[in-house]
């Protein structure tokens, strides 16, 4: 604008026409740009409009389809008696519930102590386990009357059932059942360990495994290396407490006339501790593993 003013005041044509033409040019350029912008905006707008139209079309189609399907479903359900559907589903629900409860009752045995009401009282089932292995089951059939009686049972004769019953059956039945569970689980565990030793690790034994009914005294001769490089050790495991699965006393001896070298003496002492702290079959499994690593070292 200043230019325009200077033009008017000076009256000279120095910047007059050219400046005016320049101005006109920039104006045209500006409006051209504006027109371009407007055009592009319009194009975008048109594109969006078509998109909107397309989407609207799709939406209408889907709506129509949904309506069709709903109509079909309604048509099929209205053909069935509405009352019956309600009944069937109730019955189904009850059956399913009953199945569920039955399954839970059956699965209860995995807790180790379960029972079933009988006409006389209750039949208690003790399922023993050791290290996650389900072992034998034992039953005690109780008659509920005063005094509480054991009608019959499948507990082995060497488990002191009468003693436990004399102590707790009349006064504290929970204590009775838990105590019996303890004894039976411990017995099963000890038996399992002895059986495992005889079956899986027979190669390590240099003679038969001496055991008794309660599996609370085990005596055997073994070699750490079954292929004969090792000295034979005699182990004697005593379980003075009938409710435990690890021995209370362990003696490992060497039945020979030679004096043991210090390394073998250390091994002997170490084995005594091993038998006290780990289950029997695991001790022998560790011997087997050591043997394997020794083998591997031979190859390397």
């Amino acid at each position: 604008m200043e230019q325009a003013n200077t033009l008017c005041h000076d009256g000279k044509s120095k910047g007059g026409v050219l400046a005016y033409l320049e101005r006109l040019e920039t104006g045209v350029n500006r409006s051209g740009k504006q027109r371009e912008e407007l055009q592009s905006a319009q194009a975008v707008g048109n594109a969006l409009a078509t998109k909107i139209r397309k989407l609207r079309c799709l939406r209408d189609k889907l709506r129509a389809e949904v309506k069709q399907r709903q109509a079909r479903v309604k048509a099929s359900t209205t053909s069935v008696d509405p009352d019956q559907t309600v009944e069937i589903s109730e019955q189904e629900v009850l059956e399913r519930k009953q199945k569920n409860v039955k399954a839970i009752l059956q699965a209860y045995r995995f807790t180790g102590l379960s029972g079933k009401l009988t006409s006389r009282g209750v039949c208690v089932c003790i399922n023993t386990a050791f290290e996650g292995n389900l072992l034998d089951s034992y039953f005690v059939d109780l008659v509920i009357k005063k005094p509480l009686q054991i009608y019959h049972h499948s507990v082995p004769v060497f488990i002191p059932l009468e003693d436990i019953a004399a102590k707790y059956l009349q006064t504290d039945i929970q204590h009775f059942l838990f105590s019996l569970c303890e004894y039976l689980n411990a017995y099963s565990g000890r038996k399992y360990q002895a059986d495992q030793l005889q079956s899986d690790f027979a190669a390590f034994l240099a003679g038969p495994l001496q055991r008794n009914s309660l599996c609370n005294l085990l005596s055997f001769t073994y070699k750490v290396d079954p292929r004969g490089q090792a000295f034979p050790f005699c182990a004697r495991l005593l379980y003075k407490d009938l409710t435990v699965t690890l021995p209370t006393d362990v003696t490992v001896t060497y039945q020979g006339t030679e004096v043991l070298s210090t390394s073998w003496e250390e091994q002997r002492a170490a084995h005594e501790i091993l038998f006290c702290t780990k289950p029997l079959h695991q001790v022998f499994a560790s011997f087997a593993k050591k043997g394997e690593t020794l083998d591997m070292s031979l190859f390397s």
Partner: protein
Amino acid sequence: MDETIAEFIKRTILKIPMTEMTTILKAWDFLSENQLQTVNFRQRKESVVQHLVELCEENNASLNDAALLDIIYTQLHRHRKIWDVFQMSKGPGEDVDLFDMKQFKSSFKKVLQRALKNVTVSFRDAEENAVWIRIAWGTQYTKPNQYRPTYVVYYSQTPYAFTSLSTLKSNIPLLGQALTIASKHHEIVKMDLRSRYLDSLKAIVFKQYNQNFETHNSTTPLQERSLGLHVNMDSRIIHENAMEKERVQRVTQETFGDHPQPQLEFAQYKLETKFRNGSILAEREEPLRCLIKFSSPHLLEALKSLAPAALSRIPKLFCSSGSCSQGTHAPKSWQKDLYHLYFPLLPDSPRC
């Protein structure tokens, strides 16, 4: 090898039927494979026996080896003997029994040998926790008689010993003493239980019969288990007393269980009874005492089949060795003389 031992081995092998010969000899493990292969088992038995005795001579068989052969034969032919059951008891509050089989054997032998110089004691381990003991008895002046031995089967840490006696009564207390001392018990009593079937006695005494317990896991419902006499249930015939029949079946099933019964051949029990009204004897003050005897090749199965076989008034009573010792009912003094059995009795009948 001693003449007497040779004779003993010969007589023992002669008892063995040819079909079992190789099994028993292998179990004996005294003659080697090579030696056994030299024997022609198709000959006449006398020749086979002769050859075997010669082989035993070669291996210098001892009395103990011969005794072992006798034990193996008896183990296989256990039903040829009649077995009694002895029950031992401990004092209250004893320490945990750490049963050591070696200690038991040496203690048993010592007791017998200290009392009787002339006695042969041999052992053979069986199953996991049992031992068969063979005892040949002599006297102060005579050698042990190998042909009338006593057998004892003992399961460790149990109070029961099964014996086949066949010896002088005078030796029985000594046997009892040896058993109690070796197994660390205090007293021993002969039970009123006797049978040819050692396994049945075992089942009764260790209560391994009727392992029928109700659980949620039982797959066959009780009604389906029939006793084999539900024949010809024609729907057109309405069975009278169907309820009663069902009750009888249920009681029988509860009492006897599903599995085969232990095999008992005879049972007897003393009964005190009063006659019912209507006869002269009913007025008698004192009850009548009687002795009732049952005998059968398989007594318990026979009783079990009585119930559904229309003897529907067979009622229920049972005494078993287990329940008496558990104190489920206080045993009367002469109840201890009962042979242990279970069978149904009339509810309004004489009390046992």
